[in-house]
């Protein structure tokens, strides 16, 4: 059994799950970087991520800003959100999509000698 912790994960679980967003793909998501509380390396930006199959490869992929990365839909049954997570990628990236299409993109990566860094972007997804 997989459980989620975190500071308010238990509270979220207690609220009851909403119907999951439809399983449809591809998704096209528009995000704006959130730099509040971040260090100077965070640059405000707007970008899109397409979550879709690509030619000659299996599965789903993130495509954005010159990056193509394989992802897995890790959404459990009866979930209130859909989450896509990168696979075998040096960075760890995830896009979480709510029923309304509201979405959050997070990217965590390692800065040698400096420690971990994270970028967060808020946005909206729609089915293509």
């Amino acid at each position: 059994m997989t459980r989620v912790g975190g500071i308010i994960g238990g509270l979220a679980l207690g609220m009851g799950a909403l119907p999951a967003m439809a399983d449809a793909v591809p998704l096209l998501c528009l995000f704006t970087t959130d730099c509040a509380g971040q260090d100077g390396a965070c640059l405000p930006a707007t970008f899109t991520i397409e979550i879709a199959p690509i030619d000659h490869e299996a599965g789903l992929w993130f495509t954005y800003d010159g990056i193509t990365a394989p992802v897995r839909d890790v959404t459990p049954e009866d979930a209130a959100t859909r989450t896509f997570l990168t696979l075998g990628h040096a960075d760890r990236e995830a896009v979480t999509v709510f029923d309304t299409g509201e979405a959050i993109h997070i990217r965590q990566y390692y800065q040698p000698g400096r420690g971990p860094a994270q970028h967060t972007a808020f946005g909206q997804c729609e089915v293509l």
Partner: protein
Amino acid sequence: MKYILTTAALASLFSAPALAQDRTFECTMNEACRQNGGGCVAENIPYNFTLNAETGAGEMEQREGNFFDGAAHESDGAMHFLFINSAGIEVGTITDTGRIIYTGNMALGDSLIHYRLNGTCVETTGSAGGGSSK
């Protein structure tokens, strides 16, 4: 017969894959940003992690006694871990500098919320009460 069995046992032992080593970390989250757009405040929250990149298994002990199962993955000197359930996802990264970032995207009622914890970790692998082999 006894000799044959012993040889077979040794052969089996040497051909077995190396035991996967759990890595254990004692972490203190000293900053929590619970609102979209920052809202960061000082915290002092203990978390313990047992992570095994070889088996892909991860366990988190949150607030001293609440255990959660997840997954672990290592790349470029960083240990990434992941916890998922029907409400959302939590993702964390510990690096060899002893720093940790831990993030959650969660459905809370009719909202989608995001939070981030920053902290420091001490690796306790192999110490008393620390890591074990699986």
